């Protein structure tokens, strides 16, 4: 079948059809991104924490802007080449366009990786530290040790885990999550402990069925028999519920027969199932099984898996551990100290931010006290510099025309740390995608900090969990990145699989490339807004 209006224009619209199509699509895209930008504005206006303005490393975003603008030019040249029937020229320009898309995604990947590897901790007094978690291990006695050095043993783990000395584990049969069970089994194996079933799991699916033994007491934890036990439990529970429902129905029939015309809400209190009488018809059904850990041993869990207290802990799948919470501080190399949130909270409470900060837990440590002193000196210098260049607004009352921002006042960034240590500020290129802990000269400027478990109120990598800024950052740039990938695939199809169409009907291919190019320009257009909004504001 001939597809109409691929080359010639339709009379009523004056356009070939696919152009109307792409503009309809772009109109819907404008609305989609409009909604997301609206979300950004809303989150920013109503943020109840200091918005991290101008904190992303600018260089990757800047290069990506150049790359996308360049690709917008080349895609229009590729289309022009087709219009002039120059296949070779088309190939070159389209090739550059797709290469630009690849560069864009690689840079995006570098940026994302840096975020996902960067640790942030908010303490219970709203002081925030950022950095890289160090590695730790448990010694033979189960005590937590930080490993210093370049080489890590296999059993090393990031020093932001919860260590829980466990002697008893209770597993919820309907909710247990197999990967957690496997983790328990593996860790026990590694430390030479055994997780042994406390009581034999046996029972009947219903009173008439045969007694079935699923596992004997003393058997080692395995996912296989947990699944069998779950099946047995669910069958028994279903049987019991059925019996109860039948009994309730019978009681209602009797009650209605004995009290004709009486409304149900008056009868309800008299219709009661006699549990004792029902008991013989039921089968025992227990939804949890207990295991003993012999000998008791410390398990190491990701913080997102576990809610811990002193003597018990609960994994996300309702597995309950009993024992004792071990000393397991979060240990990191600190590359930024941020008191903005603390200052905001202090102001809200009517306190003097600087004195609240000076009394914070972190600044009781001599090393950090010294850093803060250095920082205050540098803020003072900046203040003086601004007064020298822009003068006073009201000298008598000490109000200057220009004053340092909250970020400059309350945040010690990684470049500040390096500057305080070495006297030299890293350049834009050196901090390409963020602070590098691999470079010796930087790493020595980043002090180690041990944060006790109870001081941590939120810890996260720089992901949507950390705050709404990163949530909207990943949503916007992620969706934009998907558009780049999608656009590149379509353009690559024109480049690699359209020679036949070019020879048959070059104008049709030119129109296709124009339509693909329109989408590509739109992707560029979105980035033109994303770059200043996310990186510079």
């Amino acid at each position, binding site marked *: 079948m001939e597809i109409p209006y691929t080359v010639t224009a339709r009379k009523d*619209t*004056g*356009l070939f059809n696919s*152009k*109307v199509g792409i*503009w*309809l699509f*772009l*109109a*819907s*895209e*404008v*609305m989609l*991104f*409009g*909604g997301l*930008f*609206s979300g950004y*504005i*809303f989150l920013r*206006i*109503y943020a109840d924490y200091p918005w991290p*303005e*101008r904190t992303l490393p*600018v260089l990757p975003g*800047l290069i990506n*802007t*150049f790359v996308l*603008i*360049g690709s*917008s*030019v080349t895609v*229009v*040249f590729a289309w*022009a080449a087709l*219009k*002039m*029937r120059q296949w070779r020229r088309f190939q070159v320009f389209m090739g550059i366009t797709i290469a630009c898309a690849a560069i864009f995604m690689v840079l995006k990947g570098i940026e994302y990786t840096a975020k996902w590897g960067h640790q942030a901790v908010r303490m219970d007094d709203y002081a925030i530290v950022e950095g890289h978690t160090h590695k730790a291990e448990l010694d033979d006695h189960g005590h937590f040790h930080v490993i210093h050095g370049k080489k890590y043993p296999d059993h090393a783990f990031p020093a932001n885990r919860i260590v829980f000395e466990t002697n008893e584990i209770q597993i919820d049969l309907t909710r247990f999550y197999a990967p957690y069970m496997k983790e328990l089994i593996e860790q026990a194996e590694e430390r030479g402990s055994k997780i042994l079933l406390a009581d034999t799991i046996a029972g009947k699916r219903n009173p008439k069925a045969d007694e079935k033994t699923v596992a004997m007491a003393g058997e080692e934890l395995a996912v296989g028999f947990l699944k069998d036990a779950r099946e047995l439990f669910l069958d028994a529970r279903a049987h019991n519920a059925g019996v109860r429902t039948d009994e309730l129905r019978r009681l209602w029939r009797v009650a209605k027969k004995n009290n004709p015309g009486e409304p149900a809400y008056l009868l309800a209190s008299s219709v009661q199932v006699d549990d004792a009488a029902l008991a013989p018809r039921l089968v025992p059904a227990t939804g949890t099984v207990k295991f003993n850990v012999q000998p008791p041993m410390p398990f190491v869990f990701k913080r997102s898996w576990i809610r811990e207290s002193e003597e018990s802990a609960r994994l996300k799948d309702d597995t309950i551990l009993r024992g004792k919470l071990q000393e397991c501080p979060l240990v990191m190399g600190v590359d930024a100290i941020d008191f903005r949130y603390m200052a905001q909270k202090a102001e809200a409470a009517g306190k003097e931010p600087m004195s609240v900060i000076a009394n914070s837990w972190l600044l009781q440590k001599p090393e950090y006290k010294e850093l803060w002193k250095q920082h205050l000196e540098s803020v003072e210098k900046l203040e003086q510099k*601004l007064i020298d260049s*822009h003068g006073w607004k009201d000298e008598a009352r000490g109000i200057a025309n*220009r*004053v*340092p*921002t909250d*970020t*400059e006042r309350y945040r010690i960034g990684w470049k500040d740390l390096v500057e305080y240590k070495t006297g030299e500020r890293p350049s834009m290129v050196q901090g390409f995608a963020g602070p590098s802990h691999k470079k010796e000269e930087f790493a020595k400027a980043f002090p180690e900090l041990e944060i006790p478990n109870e001081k941590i109120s939120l810890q996260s990598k720089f992901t949507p969990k950390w705050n709404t800024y990163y949530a909207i950052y990943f949503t916007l740039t992620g969706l934009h990145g998907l558009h780049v990938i999608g656009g590149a695939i379509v353009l690559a199809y024109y480049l690699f699989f359209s020679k036949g169409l070019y020879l048959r009907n070059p104008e049709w291919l030119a129109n296709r490339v124009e339509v693909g*190019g*329109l989408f590509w*320009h*739109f992707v*560029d*257009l979105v980035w*033109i*807004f994303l*770059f*200043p*909004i996310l990186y*510079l*504001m």
Partner: protein
Amino acid sequence: MADSPEAVKKAQKLYLLIGAILFVFTVVTLLVATVPALDVGRHGFDLADMTIGLLIASLKAGLVAAIFMHLSNEKRTIYVLISLGIVFGLAMILLIWFAYADPIEFKGFYDIGNLK
């Protein structure tokens, strides 16, 4: 729109020029945001910086739309389609104003005093 091969050939110079302008504007955006001497308004990021940043971005977006996407020379149908998109897109952004319908913060829409 430049549709004949000759017209397309001519238009290429314009495309290059626009590309160059976009590059320059990007650099200007960066400098205004990062170089202290070019900081407008108060020290650091503020409303003036935001206005300048968004104005430049809008200008760049306008150039891309007008020249690269040929909107400067397009049929009426397309204008209708895209303005619909923009109107509804703006409506999405203006939805934020509904936040002010919170009766505790904003008494304009919903005055408890009038309720008997």
